[in-house]
């Protein structure tokens, strides 16, 4: 084992110390991170492939998978459009309050998931701000799909923006100015110059946004009402099955989410290795 860049013996640790440190760290990570991941798949398949497949083809499980995909299919594109617009406004122009705006965009990350759900109950719930009006017009938001979409959109709001803002900041405005001076209009400049420059950054943001959208539990749990077959997402279905002591089925659904996490990590790392110069995240932000 060597140090990553050449270092003389005086400015790195002796080999035995390096090996020892690596061994200790790997052991801790194996117990803390890898073991829980392994347990998900082992518990899911413990009763055999038949039980596993039966759990996944259960109508309630299928409807949970479907709802999770619908919610992500709405929330993720919304936050992509928002992320691109916010990054464009913040990085291409100077205006007062810019750093405040950047801070506010990050705000949902520092709000507890349960509180994220609660705020929508306070607005749309039966005893909430708009509750009486919604009931009078028989519009359902809380304990229905719109509430789940709102809560999910809230918790995943910063992902694309916070990847694109540092990236577009570092790319500057020279490419866009060149395109405009050559006669391109605003939309042409965006589609043909800006978007190709930021495509890997957008994809990176989409990956993280999607993983969280499909896996969000706390916020969605508060607004969902847990109605089987109607307002149950995959993470909520995992909880219901677990609380019914149906562990095999619970871990079976959980294994799909764990698989999604693994695919996300793999794709994210692949992007970081191949396109690090075209990502803000690849440069240690």
């Amino acid at each position, binding site marked *: 084992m060597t140090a990553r860049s050449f270092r003389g013996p*005086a400015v790195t640790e002796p080999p035995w110390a390096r090996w020892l440190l690596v061994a200790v760290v790997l052991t801790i990570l194996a117990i803390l991170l890898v073991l829980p991941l392994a347990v*998900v798949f082992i518990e899911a398949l413990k009763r055999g492939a038949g039980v596993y497949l039966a759990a996944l083809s259960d109508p309630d499980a299928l409807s949970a998978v479907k709802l999770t995909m619908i919610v992500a299919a709405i929330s993720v594109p*919304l936050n992509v459009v928002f992320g691109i*617009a916010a990054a464009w406004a913040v990085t291409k122009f100077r205006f007062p309050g810019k750093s405040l705006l950047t801070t506010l965009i990050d705000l949902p990350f520092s709000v507890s998931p349960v509180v994220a759900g609660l705020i929508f109950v306070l607005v749309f719930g039966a005893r*909430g701000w708009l509750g009486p009006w919604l009931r009078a017009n028989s519009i359902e938001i809380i304990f229905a799909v719109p509430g789940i979409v709102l809560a999910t959109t809230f918790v995943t709001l910063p992902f694309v923006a916070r990847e694109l803002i540092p990236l577009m900041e570092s790319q500057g405005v020279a490419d866009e100015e060149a395109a405009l001076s050559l006669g391109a209009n605003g939309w042409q400049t965006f589609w043909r110059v800006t978007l190709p420059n930021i495509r890997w950054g957008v994809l990176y943001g989409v990956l993280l946004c999607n993983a969280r959208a499909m896996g969000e539990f706390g916020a969605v749990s508060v607004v969902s009402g847990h109605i089987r077959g109607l307002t149950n997402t995959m*993470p909520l279905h995992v909880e219901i099955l677990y609380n019914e002591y149906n562990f095999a089925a619970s871990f079976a659904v959980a294994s799909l989410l764990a698989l999604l996490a693994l695919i996300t990590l793999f794709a994210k*790392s692949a992007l970081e290795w191949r396109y690090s110069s075209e990502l803000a995240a690849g440069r*240690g932000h």
Partner: protein
Amino acid sequence: MPISATVPWRKRQSVIPGFGMTLGFTLAYLSLIALIPLAVLLFRAAGMGWHDFAALAGDKRTLSAVRLSFSTALLAALVNVVIGLPTAWVLARYDFPGRRVVDAIIDLPFALPTAVAGIALTSLYAPNGWLGAGFAALGVKIAYTPLGITLALIFIGLPFMVRTVQPVIADLEPDMEEAAATLGANRGQTFSLVLLPPLLPAILTGFALAFARGMGEYGSVIFIAGNLPYVSEIAPLLIVIRLEEFNYEAATAIAAIILGVSFASLLAINVLQAWSRRSLGHDS
């Protein structure tokens, strides 16, 4: 922005179009999805009046839930400093087989849905679980106790610590270490006297991020917590319980406390970073 002090911003026309449209959309979207709902919570908390708020916040069950969330999040963040620092060091400085895979797996707690982490940790550390059985034989109960809550929060918080400290270690210039070695310092002295001071702001930032996350964490905790009132009931769970009773006021009061603690720790990070930029004289 040195120019902005002399030239009013409106006068500097950018040739790039779309300012009004993108900023307008950004503000409208951010307000509708995040700011207005959050403001409704704050107005509702403020509208209660100090007396009612104090009565709700001072409720015995609320106090013990908040205290439990606070203390387990604090302990977990401390453990994450102890685990996260060597992890970040090893990943930033050493090359070993499988380093890239290990580096990728650090983000697992970010990518794995919290409910999945919750049931997996519970089944591992339950008294009949793989690891829980061993601890049970030693008389230590992990799942369904505050110890289990802390464990889940260590899992959730680790990437915050590693990802904050790792790039700073990677950016440390070797000349300071070389100077220290030339002057006769051993490796331990070099680490604690030369390397640790510039790492300290990043360590504290990682600590605060992990703590703030732990204070509000729900999904990974509720399965392993046991959820016994006054013993292993975390503050976010008590919000859910109050909501199920349609007691919006109590839920709002607890939420305001959690938000206040999270925001205070994040504000502390910003103050700390501004201070470290000034005192160390560089951007890091």
